[in-house]
């Protein structure tokens, strides 16, 4: 009986770190911000290790309201990687951020903990509450992560989109529960059998999915991501593009797997949303004037492929999407390290600082170029491997026109990434300030860039773990 509980170690360790961070904020003196950050980083590292140690466990808690299996543990690991990247980047922002008291690490950890619960939620009510808790922490982070006068518009936009997503999520849960007579995710597949032809049941699933894809910055809730990326500090923006993004991607995969068996309209809806997200992502990223905006576009592009993977209704599709979420988090982490060094939020000239980067900071330039190519899906990077599997699945399942559009979006993104890399190689037009990388940043960038190349190999353990996780989906 006792052996079940280690499955909850990632959540418990992060919750402990959260408590320590809170205690530090309340009781510690001037160095409380730095101490809270250390507590959160330590908690994230330990929780990440716990995810790896409990990857093989499959347990239900609280009458199947909370479920742990290989899929949830892998997804939690990806969310924690995002938290780690955001917390370390937030460290980099120290001194520039208006919030000097260090409440940011606390809300970063709180948002990540809520996302861990959402990923494992086996009940729609718990899922909705966890998603709202994560959204609340994120809205506060964004509101705190810049000067109100300059990023008020981004906050308002995020709040308006978030409110629409909350309303749709509530409607979705109400409709699905009304038709299925249950709120358990594992039972939805069978209980919705009697409502297979009901448009309102499909509307419920669609509303719930739309509420979740808001966190992915996907159509119709795509407008907040570029605004937020442009106006808040790198740590918070990185959390949106990594931790929040990965958690939402995992939740979409779970909801899609639970509902698409009976509701035939769910896969086409996801596929259309996915291709629309790809188009909007490429549109947002180009022209390459603003790097932060480009990274928001890249996140939408990846989200489009994840939605397409979820729509395939195959283990290969879901596995590729889960592996893609991990690759995306690694690439976005590198992207935000580069962006943090190439300009402050709102710097309209940040993209022009790319010129001559290969001479000023070769390691940063190489890592950023690899990350951009991975986000675009260019071979031989990890971004190509998972995307190719999804494209092949789309073609095989008969979504040939959409597969063609997805490939075209990827090609356009590759052209943009190559263009950015060419800028790094070109000489600077004006004298640019030197880029000073810390030791941790140098090691981190080298490891992440190497991973983004090595993970292109199809035999990498990540794909085995993702396949194992996808096999656990309903």
């Amino acid at each position, binding site marked *: 009986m006792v052996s079940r509980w280690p499955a909850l170690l990632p959540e418990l360790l992060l919750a402990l770190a959260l408590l320590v961070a809170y205690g530090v904020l309340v009781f510690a003196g001037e160095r409380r911000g730095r101490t809270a950050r250390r507590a959160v980083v330590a908690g994230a590292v330990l929780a990440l290790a716990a995810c790896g140690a409990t990857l093989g466990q499959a347990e239900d808690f609280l009458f199947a309201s909370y479920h742990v299996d290989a899929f949830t543990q892998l997804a939690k690991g990806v969310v924690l990687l995002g938290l780690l990247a955001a917390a370390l980047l937030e460290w980099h922002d120290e001194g520039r951020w208006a919030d000097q008291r260090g409440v940011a690490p606390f809300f970063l950890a709180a948002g990540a903990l809520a996302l861990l619960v959402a990923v494992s939620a086996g009940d729609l009510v718990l899922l909705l*509450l966890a998603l709202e808790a994560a959204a609340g922490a994120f*809205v506060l982070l964004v509101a705190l992560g810049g000067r109100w006068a300059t990023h008020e518009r981004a906050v308002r936009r995020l709040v308006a989109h978030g*409110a629409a997503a909350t309303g749709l999520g*509530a409607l979705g849960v*109400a409709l699905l529960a009304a038709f299925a*007579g249950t709120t358990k995710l594992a039972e939805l597949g069978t209980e919705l059998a009697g409502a297979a032809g009901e448009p309102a049941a499909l509307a419920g699933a669609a509303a719930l999915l739309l509420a979740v894809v808001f966190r992915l910055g996907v159509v119709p809730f795509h407008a907040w991501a570029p605004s937020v990326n442009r106006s808040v500090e790198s740590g918070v923006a990185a959390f949106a593009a990594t931790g929040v993004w990965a958690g939402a991607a995992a939740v979409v995969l779970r909801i899609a797997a639970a509902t698409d068996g009976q509701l035939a309209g769910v896969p086409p809806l996801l596929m259309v949303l996915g291709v629309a997200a790809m188009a909007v992502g490429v549109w947002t990223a180009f022209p390459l004037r603003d790097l932060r905006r480009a990274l928001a576009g890249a996140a939408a592009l990846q989200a489009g492929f994840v939605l397409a993977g979820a729509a395939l209704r195959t283990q290969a599709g879901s596995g590729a999407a889960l592996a893609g979420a991990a690759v995306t988090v690694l690439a976005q982490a590198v992207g935000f390290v580069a962006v943090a060094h190439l300009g402050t939020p709102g710097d309209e000239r940040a993209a022009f600082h790319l010129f001559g980067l290969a001479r000023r900071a070769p390691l940063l330039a190489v890592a950023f170029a690899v990350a951009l190519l991975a986000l675009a899906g260019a071979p031989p990077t990890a971004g190509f491997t998972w995307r190719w599997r999804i494209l092949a699945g789309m073609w095989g399942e008969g979504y040939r026109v959409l597969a063609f559009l997805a490939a075209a979006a990827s090609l356009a993104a590759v052209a943009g990434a190559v263009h950015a890399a060419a800028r790094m190689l070109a000489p600077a037009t004006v004298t640019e300030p030197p880029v000073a990388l810390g030791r941790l940043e140098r090691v981190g960038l080298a490891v992440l860039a190497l991973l983004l190349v090595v993970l292109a190999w199809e035999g990498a353990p990540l794909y085995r773990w993702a396949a194992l996780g996808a096999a656990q989906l309903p």
Partner: protein
Amino acid sequence: MTLTLVVAVAAALFGFGFGALLYRRSLVGILIALELMVGGAALLASGVMSLAGAASAIGQVIALALVAVGAAAAVLLLALHVAAARAARAAKGLEPW
């Protein structure tokens, strides 16, 4: 008849809320729109599940959870509204509503 009425009222509440969200841009306007939407969803869950005779307790649990979501959203948005009002006053601009 009663079930139809409940669904119609819930749909109207949600529709008005969604419409208000599209129309209003102030934080208080967004908050009112959100409360209308969440209220409509809560009415739908509790009303339909009670009147249809299937697992009425689940409907009530969903409604309670939605009340909690609405309350949390109200706290968050009002805090942001106060921050916006302070910032606007400091900049000698108009109040944000």
